[in-house]
């Protein structure tokens, strides 16, 4: 089982669209995929579930927020998982697409988690750091190693404790970025924060007897919302793609294209574009090419 955190410090880079389409296509190819929505905006959740259904059936007790609240001892991680209905008919064979939904109140959970940090002495403080940052690791361990081929965690555009839980739990970090000035700067912020988290976590882990260190790797930057002219990204964006490659960050060769017509209302129907729009073979083909690349790097 491979665990991937999908994150960029900069919001609005097409992170959720990427996660939903990657997950959908991999499930369609026969992989068992679990998506975890850690973003309080709940965009991934609302890409698969109608807000009214979420409010009635998931929000009260079946979202990732329940896992991070103090009384989590009474629930099992498995109880939070559900199978979105609309996408089910597009997946056949062994493939599975499951989701742990987010909650709009998840934004307040960070304050509660922060209150649990610190301690009477250094040893206690280190233990509390590990406990607070390992909540998601605990949950995923409950699922068992063979329950899914892949877990995709859609992270919020920040580096709060909930996000750090995702990074700590993950084998890889996947970074969607628009090829523009601010989005590519977000990649640098993220690398810095990532290095610091790994250092802090592993330093605290050495103080505990049973705690393993973490070693998340940057899987790569995938450029999203790319505008094309004559088959190549437009000239204003090409320097940002080239510069990112020169900074020795792995960069995916394939791009996700900007297309409001297809992507703008896809969440309304609960099925990712890649599984529905066979009439736009060019766009679907590009997503499939990205998934090929991802599959080769992570799953094969």
């Amino acid at each position, binding site marked *: 089982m491979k665990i991937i955190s999908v994150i960029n410090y900069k919001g609005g880079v097409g992170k959720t669209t990427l996660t939903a389409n990657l997950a959908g296509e991999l499930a369609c190819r026969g992989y068992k995929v679990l998506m975890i929505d850690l973003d309080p905006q709940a965009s991934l959740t609302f890409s698969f579930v109608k807000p009214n259904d979420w409010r009635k059936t998931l929000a009260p007790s079946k979202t990732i927020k329940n896992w991070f609240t103090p009384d989590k001892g009474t629930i099992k991680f498995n109880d939070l998982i559900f199978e979105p209905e609309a996408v089910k008919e597009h997946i056949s064979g062994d493939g599975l697409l499951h989701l742990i939904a987010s909650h709009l109140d998840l934004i307040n959970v960070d304050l509660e988690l922060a209150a649990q940090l610190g301690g009477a002495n250094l040893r206690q403080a280190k233990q509390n750091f590990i406990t607070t940052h390992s909540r998601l690791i605990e949950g995923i361990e409950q699922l068992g190693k063979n329950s899914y081929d892949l877990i995709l965690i859609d992270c919020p555009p920040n580096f709060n404790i909930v996000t750090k839980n995702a990074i700590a739990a993950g084998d890889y970090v996947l970074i969607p970025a628009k090829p523009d000035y601010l989005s590519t700067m977000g990649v*640098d*912020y993220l690398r*810095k924060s990532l290095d610091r988290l790994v250092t802090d976590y592993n330093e605290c882990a050495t103080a505990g007897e049973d705690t393993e260190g973490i070693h998340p790797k940057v899987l790569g930057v995938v450029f999203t919302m790319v505008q094309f002219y004559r088959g190549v990204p437009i000239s204003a964006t090409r*320097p940002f793609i080239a*510069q990112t490659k*020169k*900074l020795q960050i792995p960069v995916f060769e394939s791009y996700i294209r900007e297309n409001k017509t297809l992507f703008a209302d896809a969440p309304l129907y609960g099925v990712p574009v890649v599984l529905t729009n066979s009439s736009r073979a060019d766009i679907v083909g590009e997503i499939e090419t990205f998934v090929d690349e991802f599959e080769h790097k992570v799953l094969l």
Partner: protein
Amino acid sequence: MNNIPCLHEIRSTIDAESVADALCQMNTCEEGELFLLSKHLKRAELEVIARGLDIPFQKRDRTDRLKDKIIEGTIGFRLRSQAIRSNSI
């Protein structure tokens, strides 16, 4: 008609590739500015360098703006990345 000179037309006056390579080795923007100044480059030569680096520019860009773009594309982006990743912040 496009009246921008092609690389081969001004090769006699400037080796765009070596200018770009030199800039890519520099560690401050000031160093790059002085270097470009010392070359006494004409606008057409700056355009060739920018085009070689795949840096977009517009006809209405002034020469100074063109130089800034070349320096940003060869030196500035590295410094920006280092500044953000620096442990001192």
